[in-house]
């Protein structure tokens, strides 16, 4: 049941990503499963990245941001703190252990950096299996917008040993931060 909900959230994220307007929900589901599988078995290299803490995340609707030049991860500590508080309020501590939100944020951004490596990109596209062009037996795999976000979340879940996808936490945070739009 919970796994189904996580997958529904993943499909919703893909469906809301531009270029997927009108896509068959079944196709989106297959991509979501493939992206999550790929992300959960990724083994990104440890690279030194500067971490900068900021406290304007709730206003901006952000939990973390990765920038490649220069490599830096911005961690929005107010959102992280609100997420930890939310975990307690909802009784989700068994899914998200103490301090796991910060760790998941760092892992999520580490996964994004890893997904920019050429060989990882190629492998990821093959795993998704979406065809952009077919010439006889030759096949050009297509990029699936939004799939890297799912892979990054899946990696964060696996790396931090979370009981549920970080997407559940994202959904709960969004409901708290933007209560009006949830109605």
């Amino acid at each position, binding site marked *: 049941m919970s796994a189904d909900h996580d997958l529904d959230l993943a499909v919703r994220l893909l469906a809301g990503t531009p270029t997927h*307007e009108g896509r068959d929900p079944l196709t989106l589901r297959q991509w979501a499963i493939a992206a999550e599988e790929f992300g959960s078995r990724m083994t990104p290299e440890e690279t030194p990245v500067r971490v900068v803490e900021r406290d304007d995340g709730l206003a901006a609707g952000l939990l973390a941001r990765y*920038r490649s030049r220069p490599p830096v991860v911005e961690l929005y500590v107010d959102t992280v703190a609100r997420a930890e508080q939310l975990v307690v309020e909802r009784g989700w501590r068994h899914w998200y252990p103490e301090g796991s939100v910060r760790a998941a944020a760092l892992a999520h951004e580490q996964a994004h950096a890893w997904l920019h490596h050429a060989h990882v*990109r190629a492998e990821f*596209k093959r795993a998704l299996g979406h065809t952009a062009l077919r010439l006889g037996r030759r096949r050009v795999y*297509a990029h699936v917008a939004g799939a*890297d976000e799912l892979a990054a979340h899946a990696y964060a879940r696996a790396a931090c040993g979370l009981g549920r996808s970080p997407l559940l936490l994202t959904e709960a945070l969004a409901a708290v931060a933007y209560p009006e*739009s949830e109605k």
Partner: protein
Amino acid sequence: MGVVILLVMAAGVAAMLSRKLPTAFALVLLAVVIAFVAGAPLTGKDSVLDTVLQEGAPALAATMIAILLGSWLGKLLEETGIAGTLVRKIVEFGGDRPVFVALGVLAVSALVGTVTGSAPAAMLAGLIGIPAMIAVGIPKVTAAGTILMGIAVGIPFELPVWQFFSTALELPVDTVRGFMVKLFPFALVAAVAYVLVESRRRGVEHTWSLKSVQDKPAAPSRRKLLGDAPWYALLTPAVPLILALGFELAIIPSLLAGVLYALVTTTRPRDMNRRLLRTLYGGFEVAAPPITLFVAIGILLAAVKLPGAVDALEPLVKAVSPQNPILFVLVFTVLVPLCLYRGPLNAFGLGAGIAGVLIATGIYPAAAVLGMATSYNQVFGVADPTSTQTVWSAQYAGVSPQQVMVRTLPYVWVVALGGLCVTAASYL
């Protein structure tokens, strides 16, 4: 009397800058006051009512029709999914290389920019293009700027703009086309440089956003479920361009051919009538703001060309206008920022009036004024934080128009410099 007219113009700029009056209303008011100050009678030959208002209002009628047809074609590109398909294909083929996606969206923006300018072009390319670029890691400011720089690449080939400069400056379309072809390489090089340099400087960025799962996608409409537009329909934006540039066909039939091509390549015969009418009426809505502006510009041009206004302004303008080609380039390059914030050199505002004065007083040949105005238009079209396309692109990307201006201005300033150099070399 010339000083009074300049003071009236300055007051008009102040009214536009302070948003006390919408640009179109300010230009009409300015025109009427200038006409009275220039000693024009109320009715009859060279008068306020007959010459300025009656003859000035429809003076740019051909431009208005071209704008309407461009907007109609833009609506068709949107409704038939042609613009969206172009962006989707680019993301599918090159989404794992953010620079490739940005260059692709730049090309799509340039194509739609040739059809319809301003906010409609930004929306056509940006509605999918901006979030698609952000999704592959392009920073928000770079994404918004890419759309605008792309539209600016299309501006030299935007047929309604050819029509505008041809009518407003009383130049043959051939002359306008000839200069635009020379301006295009500068716009193209600057736009590609923008994408490459900014991508290198800023790299990529990815966010863990709370909004990613918050927005529930709307149920897809039946049109969207029909899928991508066929590949041959994707050539639509190029059709008017090929006809006007390659076959030197007139502007209005070229645009009409684009409308027909989009229709027959995407629509079943039984749906054609309904789609044509629906998109045409939608086009009227899109074209309303620029057409209003062109009515006002026609009135202003009629006022500054009145004999009394020309006689009053000639000695003043002559005294401050550089005749030496090098000085011409230097002075007018330094003055580039005056086309921003609805400033006095904005070709779609008071700048049209100033261009009219420069031609009417014979200070520069009309072709040189064309060079100046189009060079400034390249800056205004991208960097002006008050222009509709800049405001829309910036806000849709989630940044401020000022951030976009700061990042794009150096590139478009160089385009203006290039245009002014060509102008000085060709016409002075």
